[in-house]
């Protein structure tokens, strides 16, 4: 090829085409999505995150949870996500309005967490799972996040926030207790906030039947 301007122009054009379609277009359309307000109750969907949960999102990012856990429910006509009870409906772009960044994820080495807040039994259970997943779920390959907790000697009464029901290898010895750090508290608040069951006009509830 000897016509250089043609080469440079072509190289520019092929890239620009994809850039316009896959970057500029989502930027001006999906990027402008707003929350919807329920006419009857006045509720706003997706609900905004509490301050704790918003901070917890940063802990989620800094420890790379997204490399194993997706947050996407795909529609019933395409996959078995709904039948697998990952959520009552598919996730749509508006669901990620409160996410920074959007943790869509691309692997399910661990469970999908789109609606973890709906199925989590209690805050203590979330902490037990984070502290030592193998003691809670047999065969789990989730790492232990012990570094988000402090083990200390009980002086007088056990602390209010101390974890209860710890078993297994990392359970505290008698006379000791495990308390969540600030990071663990906000992370649990974020995980508990993961509930995408609110109604959105573009994503009706789905059934597998």
């Amino acid at each position, binding site marked *: *090829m*000897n016509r*250089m301007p043609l*080469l*440079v122009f*072509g*190289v520019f054009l*092929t*890239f620009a*085409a*994809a*850039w316009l*379609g*896959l*970057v500029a277009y*989502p*930027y001006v359309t*999906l*990027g402008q*999505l707003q929350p919807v307000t329920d006419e009857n109750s006045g509720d706003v969907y997706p609900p905004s995150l509490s301050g704790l949960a918003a901070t917890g999102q940063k802990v989620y*990012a*800094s*420890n*790379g949870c*997204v*490399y*194993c856990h997706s947050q*996407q429910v*795909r529609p019933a006509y*395409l996959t*078995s996500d709904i*039948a*697998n009870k990952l959520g009552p409906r598919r*996730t749509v*772009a*508006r*669901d*990620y309005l*409160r996410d*920074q*960044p*959007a*943790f*869509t994820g*691309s*692997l*399910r*080495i661990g*469970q999908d967490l789109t609606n973890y807040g709906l199925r989590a039994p209690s805050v203590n259970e979330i902490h037990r799972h984070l502290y030592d997943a*193998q003691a809670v*779920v*047999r*065969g*789990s*390959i989730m*790492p*232990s*996040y012990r*570094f988000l907790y402090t083990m200390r000697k009980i002086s007088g009464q056990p602390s209010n926030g101390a974890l209860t029901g710890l078993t297994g*290898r990392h359970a505290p010895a008698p006379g000791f207790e495990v308390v969540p750090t600030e990071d663990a508290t906000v992370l649990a608040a974020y995980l508990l906030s993961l509930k995408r069951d609110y109604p959105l006009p573009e994503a009706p509830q789905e059934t597998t039947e």
Partner: protein
Amino acid sequence: MIASAQSPILEKVDASLRLPVLIFFGCAACWLVLGTFLCAVAGFKLVWPGFLDGPAFLTYGRIAPAAVNVLVYGWASSAAFGIVLWLLARLGRTPLDYVVLPVAAAIFWNVGVFLGLLAILAGYSRSVFLLEFPGFISGILFIAYLFIAVWGIVLFRRRAPGSVFVSAWYLLAALLWFPWLYFTGNALLIWGHPVSGPAQAPIASWFASGIINLWLAPVALSAAFYLIPQILGRRLVSYNLSLLGFWSFAVFAAWTGMAQLIGGPVPAWMVSAGVVASILLFIPVLVISINLLGTMRGSFEAWLWSPSLRFTLAGAGAFLLVYVSGVLLALPGVNAVFHFSDVLLGQGALALFGFVSMSFFGAIYYIVPRLTGQAWPSDGLIRWHFWLFTVAVGTGYLCLMFGGMTQGFALSDPGVDFSSSVAFATPFRLMAALCAIALLVGAACFTGLFFRAVLSVFEPAAKSSAPAVTV
């Protein structure tokens, strides 16, 4: 082994490039060892979560992205810069002036990658795939890149008159695409106020696939297009095939990442465009492979005496395999089942360790003797490096694919609970982690060999030996 006397102008070109290119390759080789080591650690953590756990920086969610970033920005990108500069200077028969600037850029880039690695391990990552480095560090990388790219463009502008070879098309494209890609990715997802959540999924997907398809792949193909005819001393099969391959790759490659968002929170047409592009990418892949392998026709025994040809051909084979299996995996029915499974890891590993790395090894084995003026010190280590990589990449790929498929079927079956999908994948993940150990040993062979070759230049005895050059 062949010995060839080089023309004076090429010797001048090589002399001018010696320092910057060897710095890029040296840093790249060290990153490769560290990257494969981190890969192995992450791999074993998936099997034994208690392996090396405790402190925060050793948690899987930090080790895994650290490994990927070290491999992509440390190893592959540094190696790519060395290859780009050498090929552009060589193709244009132009020596490089002001060597201090590319050398400074090389140092800045690698210091940036080092700081980025520390930042990920310390937990300062936003967990956006391949954009894990904090904003000020990607800023350093971007500025370092501009210095390198400007020098590449200067070399290209000053080229000796004559037709521009197909390798230079790919290099020019990669040099123009990477800054646009990297700037867009950082500006919209990392720097300042990132775009709102709903717009992030397609942009992140476009970026991640672009780093392979629009940056590393063109450099790897450029090296293959240069080396195969050069080593065999013949012409490429067809100029028209080169044209068709280049332009169809340029048109389709940028769109393929969207296929992975099947069922995801993006407009349906985007996924369709990604699926169509992934399938149509079959055309350039076939055309490029025919052009490269056709040039080899009747001379496959050259594989035996030329290590760089051996690595280049293995890279070309992996190129064919990774994109052809990409076509099959893009088909919506297949995609919906295997998405979210280890199949994705297998594809990524084959692209990075098979296609990109093997092609880059081929180029480095060709370039370094021309810079040091001496043959590689050990044939045996080159063989070890080649076979360790080929067997480990091949076996690791098969394991992750089979494991990923069983995992994908388990994930898609409402009658099978989630823990079974983990149990099915685990033996295959263990095998893949063992393959990562083999990659680490292979990388250590390569790096040891590289530094022996570079340091032997300073030995007085070696200086007097004949300037033989091996390919």
